[in-house]
């Protein structure tokens, strides 16, 4: 299979088995994530959608398949370059190019908001601290939290924390953003402010993979929707195809449950 120009991440036959395959958290999932895609992954809980997302930056170690990112299969310890030389894979480098936002925010509680944001660019990329702080303040201003720069995470609401988590990931200037149920731990009145930031990000052309239960967001912002059940990729298509014309009985059943 040739690598298409706009395929940022190619997932091929991705598997995550436990107990020699008795439990299949991910069962042969293949999908291309293209540049500029806003891919929304939906499905019942335990369907493997979080495992799929977390496998993309190898927070979850798969038991089979390939994830090709930047022309390199990042599931292997080594790869061969164009001259046929064997090179040890530096996973940290690849992770720098994928931002991730977690359900439980995972801000560093012992650091101020601004330090949370500048730590990785300064320590990992070796950037100038003052410049990073300037950029961090600009990003905070965009999400309306400039005045909380010197606060500690504990002093913020859930919605504020998640907005900080998003801009913290953006500080590394990633090529793709992975969202793992970013609004599931939030009080309902705070869901909107986080989705607003994500919507804005999507409109700027950021490639996004988003596991969510927010069907409205999937329908409105997503350009592709994946439906997963029992570790399998059951159906995929545009939001219009998925929501208005579901084909598989499993997906119809799911909608019957959630859109009651």
């Amino acid at each position, binding site marked *: 299979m040739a690598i298409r120009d706009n395929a940022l991440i190619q997932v091929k036959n991705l598997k995550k088995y436990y107990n020699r395959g008795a439990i299949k958290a991910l069962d042969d999932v293949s999908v291309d994530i293209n540049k500029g895609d806003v891919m929304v992954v939906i499905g019942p809980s335990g369907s493997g959608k979080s495992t799929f997302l977390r496998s993309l930056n190898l927070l979850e170690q798969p038991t089979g398949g390939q994830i090709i990112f930047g022309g390199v299969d990042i599931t*292997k310890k080594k790869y061969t370059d164009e001259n046929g030389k064997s090179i040890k894979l530096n996973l*940290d480098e690849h*992770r720098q190019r994928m931002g991730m936002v*977690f359900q439980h925010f995972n801000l560093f*509680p012992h650091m101020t908001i601004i330090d949370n944001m500048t730590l990785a660019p300064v320590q*990992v990329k070796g950037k100038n601290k003052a410049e990073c702080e300037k950029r961090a303040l600009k990003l905070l201003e965009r999400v309306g939290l400039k005045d909380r720069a010197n606060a500690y995470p504990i002093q913020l609401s859930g919605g504020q924390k998640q907005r900080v988590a998003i801009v913290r990931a953006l500080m590394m200037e990633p090529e793709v953003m992975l969202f793992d149920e970013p609004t599931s731990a939030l009080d309902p009145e705070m869901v909107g402010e986080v989705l607003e930031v994500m919507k804005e990000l999507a409109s700027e052309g950021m490639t996004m993979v988003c596991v969510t239960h927010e069907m409205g967001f999937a329908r409105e912002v997503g350009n592709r929707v994946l439906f997963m059940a029992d570790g399998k990729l059951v159906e995929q298509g545009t939001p219009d195809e998925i929501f208005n014309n579901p084909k598989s009985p499993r997906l119809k059943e799911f909608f019957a449950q959630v859109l009651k």
Partner: protein
Amino acid sequence: MKKMFALLLALSMCLLVFAVPAAATATTDSWRDELTTVTEGKLTVATSPDFAPYEFYAIDENGTPTLSGFDMDLAKYMADYMGLELEIVTVDFDGVLSELQTKSVDLGMAGLSPSAEREAIMDFSEIYYQGGQAMVTSKAYADEIKSMEDANKADYTIGAQTGSIQLELANTNTPDAAIVSMPKVTDIISELLSGKEQAAFVEMDVALCYQKNYPDLVVVCEVPYDTKGSAIGVCKGNAPLLAAVNDAITASQEDGSMEQFVAEAVDLAAGDKYEGLLEDGAVPGQEGEEAPDEAEEESGNAFVKAKNFATVAKYKDLFVQGVIVTILLSVFTVLIGFVLALMLALMRMSDFRPLRFLSMNKEGFEEDTGILSKIGKFNPLSFLATAYVEIIRSTPVLVQIFIIYYGVFSMISLPSFTLFGFLKFERFFPGIVALGINSGAYLCEIIRSGIQSVDGGQTEAARSLGMSQIQNLRFIILPQALKNILPAIANEFVVIIKESSITYTIGVQDIMSAVNAVKGAAFVITEPLLVATAIYFCLCFPTSKVIAYFERRMSRGDKR
């Protein structure tokens, strides 16, 4: 052959040269040029100051507790004679033997009687003091026990000092009795007077000294022993030093110094000369020997006597030094322990699996079941660290200290110097190393639990930002883990304050060694222990209260 002959000739020439002055003065100075000691320029002498009038702590004119006794006077005399600086190391009696065996000191002076077994581990000087051996009992048993045969009964308990000739004498002369060995003569006398022992074997002069202070003590008989007298134990194989010691002994006997030392020491031990060992406010003119006798009889068998605290107070300098040493011991132990523990904890939590390839399937992914996957999970670093922690936690700290001090540090020579005038580095250092090694095992578990208490999401967030494992540890995990475990580390500090008391067994002058000094010198036992109890309490209780305060404050900050 020719060479051998030349050597012999040279040797005999040397002998000839030195024989002439030797004949004139009865001493030879042949050792002068070849004299070497453990620490250059110093004569290091190990002793066990619980053995009045040989060696004990007495209060001098300035009210300072000073090592005294004729052994100490003779040691000073010998050091001057050899042109060296005297350095005294105080340990238990069996410690004196170990120090000589491991060649940590030059001389052992503790009323040592030469014996064949001891000859194997040390050289002996000539006899410098004609002592004798005695069997003692208390007044309560004086009628029953009139000879060694009387004492040789199965229902009698007989005491003697650990590692001493007296212990051998007890075993030979009263084999049917139950024989108890204790590290300090003071403890033996105390047990005897309280009725826990019926008789004891003690050096004659020591027995007479105790008798002056404790009139209930009765000397039953002199115990026959083939080597009558005490000699100085000399580090084995140091012939020039042995020659020097023998010359010094001869000189001290010829100029009458030795006689004077003994007379002074006996006076001092009986409380005749210095007010220090007398009851405060004793009637002037009353004879020194009677004053304490009456006091003893008046207070009868009281557990604690107020006047004895006054005696202990005179040794306050030793206690102050002890407190400083104990605090320094604890601080350095926790520091060493912490660094060690951090390394161990990281080893235990590392992901170093050199056999991982065995558990890979054809596609290069790890299998999670089967024997090969178990082998693949083997982590040698973690295994070593776990073994270390389990071994250290399952063995007594006393054993560890002895192994480190007499085993490891007898092979490594440490610089010998004294800090603040009382902290001997070559003992303090093995002490903190041994305690640190012990504490490291416990702190390792504390640190490990601290690291594991940090939410797993923190690592995920850090790694997803591209941070390496080390960066994650340094910036994210350890700062949070340390905050969580600070109270536990501080508690370990309190534990170490108490546990450090064990280092007195290798001659570190901490609070416990002050207690032992007072016990050996002033013949009071319970009171210095109570003083030590109070000191330890005053150190530990406020510390744990302060910790508890900070613990509460920190947990308040975490509430959402």
